[in-house]
């Protein structure tokens, strides 16, 4: 039981809970207690310190903005203007958009979840209402009526995840085969090296514009979700380079002993590639894919923001444009959600990597 849970923790990359499990099993109390303090307590302390620092800093920034407003009011209308300004600040009529405090971010997050519940209730009610009509329309060969209301925060997250996975798989199916071909042929590698070196550092924004130029012309008559197509292709192209470079390196640097084995056994090219070269390049390929997932998630936000494809990027940008009292708090809440999901995606890839490769990652 104990060993099993430790193995599971290790596999999903949460090995820092290992001492807690050992402690619960009553094993070597003193050693595991220090381990527990080192691996669990100290990180928690650092989180608390971070929140404290954030809280103090946010207060300070808020006060700077507030003092400035009061000062401006005093200059224009004296004491009475200050009093009205204070009232306006109190009522929220005059907004102060500074760094939100931790408490307001938590409130904003709760509001977003509550908002999501309201919207999904509306959505299911709507679908129930139009269910019959939709059946009729289907029989008549017409398109079904879909819900076109505002997407909730959770909807945005799901859309973003769809985009990032579509982009990731595009990167996977482009970069791994191309990387293998480049890794196997030195001539090809040196002849297209310039292309890799030039396109690798290009910014996500430029990738987006490039994809936009091409896809726009190709989809003039297509009435589907073009912005989704553009954003996932841009994400894929932006994120694929780490995998491409790593696959090339992995395939071109296979251990000479393995190559000799293939030669002595007279393996065919196909056998050599799939039985020897590819498996021995797996560790590097998966490291590349892990970087690709992280990069895909990172650039996604910027690309969604530009493409107006729904998702977290659009959400952040709209909140910024909105400038309501809790907009900044919502943006920070989204930031934590984005970071958290990025972390989870990386853990996921880490587990897949461990499962698929022969060396300890």
């Amino acid at each position, binding site marked *: 039981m104990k060993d099993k849970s430790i193995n599971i923790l290790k596999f999903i990359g949460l090995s820092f809970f290992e001492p807690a499990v050992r402690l619960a099993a009553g094993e070597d109390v003193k050693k595991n207690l220090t381990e527990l303090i080192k691996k669990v307590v100290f990180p928690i302390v650092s989180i608390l310190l971070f929140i404290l620092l954030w809280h103090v800093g946010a207060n300070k920034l808020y006060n700077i903005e507030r003092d400035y407003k009061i000062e401006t009011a005093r200059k224009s209308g004296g004491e009475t203007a200050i009093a009205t300004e204070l009232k306006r600040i109190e009522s929220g009529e005059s907004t102060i958009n500074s760094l939100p405090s931790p408490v307001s971010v938590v409130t904003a997050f709760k509001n977003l979840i509550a908002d999501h519940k309201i919207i999904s209730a509306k959505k299911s009610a709507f679908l129930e209402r139009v269910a019959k009509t939709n059946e009729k329309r289907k029989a008549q060969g017409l398109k079904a009526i879909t819900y076109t209301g505002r997407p909730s925060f959770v909807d945005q997250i799901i859309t973003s995840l769809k985009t990032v996975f579509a982009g990731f798989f595009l990167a996977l199916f482009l970069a791994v085969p191309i990387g293998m071909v480049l890794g196997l042929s030195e001539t090809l590698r040196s002849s297209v090296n310039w292309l890799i070196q030039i396109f690798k550092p290009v910014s996500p924004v430029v990738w987006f514009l490039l994809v936009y130029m091409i896809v726009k012309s190709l989809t003039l008559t297509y009435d589907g979700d073009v912005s989704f197509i553009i954003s996932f292709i841009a994400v894929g192209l932006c994120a694929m380079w780490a995998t491409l470079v790593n696959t090339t390196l992995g395939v071109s640097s296979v251990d000479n*002993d*393995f190559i*000799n*084995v293939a*030669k*002595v*056994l*007279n*393996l065919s090219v196909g056998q050599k590639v799939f*039985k*020897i070269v590819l*498996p*021995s390049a*797996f560790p590097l390929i998966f490291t590349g894919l892990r970087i690709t997932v992280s990069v895909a998630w990172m650039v996604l936000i910027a690309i969604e923001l530009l493409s107006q494809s729904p998702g977290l990027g659009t959400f952040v940008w709209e909140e910024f444009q909105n400038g309501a009292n809790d907009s900044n708090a919502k943006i920070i809440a989204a930031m934590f959600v984005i970071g958290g999901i990025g972390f989870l995606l990386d853990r996921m890839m880490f587990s897949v990597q461990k499962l698929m*490769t*022969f*060396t300890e990652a």
Partner: protein
Amino acid sequence: MTTVKEKNTRLDNGLFSNEYMLDINQLTKIYPTPKGDYVVLDDLDLKVKHEEFISIIGHSGCGKSTLLTMIAGLNEISRGTIVADNKTVKGPGPDRGVIFQSPSLLPWMTAYDNVMLGVKQVFAHGTKKDRDDIVKYYLAKVGLEDSMYKRAKDLSQGMQQRVGIARAFALKPKVLLLDEPFGMLDSLTRGELQDVLVEVWNQEKITAIMITHDVDESILLADRVIMMTSGPRAKVGDILEIDFERPRNRAELIEHPDYYKYREHLINFLEH
């Protein structure tokens, strides 16, 4: 042996040869360097009879490994010819099995799959059952019947080299090439594996050439010990026939009065 002697085929280099499994003629290996050519082997001649076990000793860097990789077809021949089983060596092939110094197993495959990879290649026309039998037979021979389905990376160095031995023998090569196969092992494991090799070889009698640093190992295993001169321009310096009866046994051999004569001969050569 008579069946072999009756065969009298003309070789592609124009010579007649029937009594040697391996015939090396004026073999030269030159590595071009910026400071001019570096001659590793110079006009080396060596003939190996059918079912003979040869070991080659010499100082580090004298070109022993170069010679072996050239026979294996993994290293280009600068001048001269190598004829193995009446065919001129032009490249690597499963008729010349190699046991490398590092076990060179594919770490992501099981011991079984590592052996099967080659067996599939060589016995492509046999049935699946035949191939399965061959792989299991040889893995059992080297004492791995319990670890057949373990992944190579989970096996110890010694066990990995056992798989290497099984893989080489399972392919039924004409010539077996061993490049310091036990060089990376501790002395206890080395002894064990030498015994495994002696035992398997006694049954299979595959013509073998083994490179070694170990004087005792060469006496235990070989019919003839080839002593190479130090490089550059290495040649065969001396040849020692080991006249012990087969099958050999390590314990009995050490008791034998001739053992120390052989040993002294080899050590004298290496020290001068």
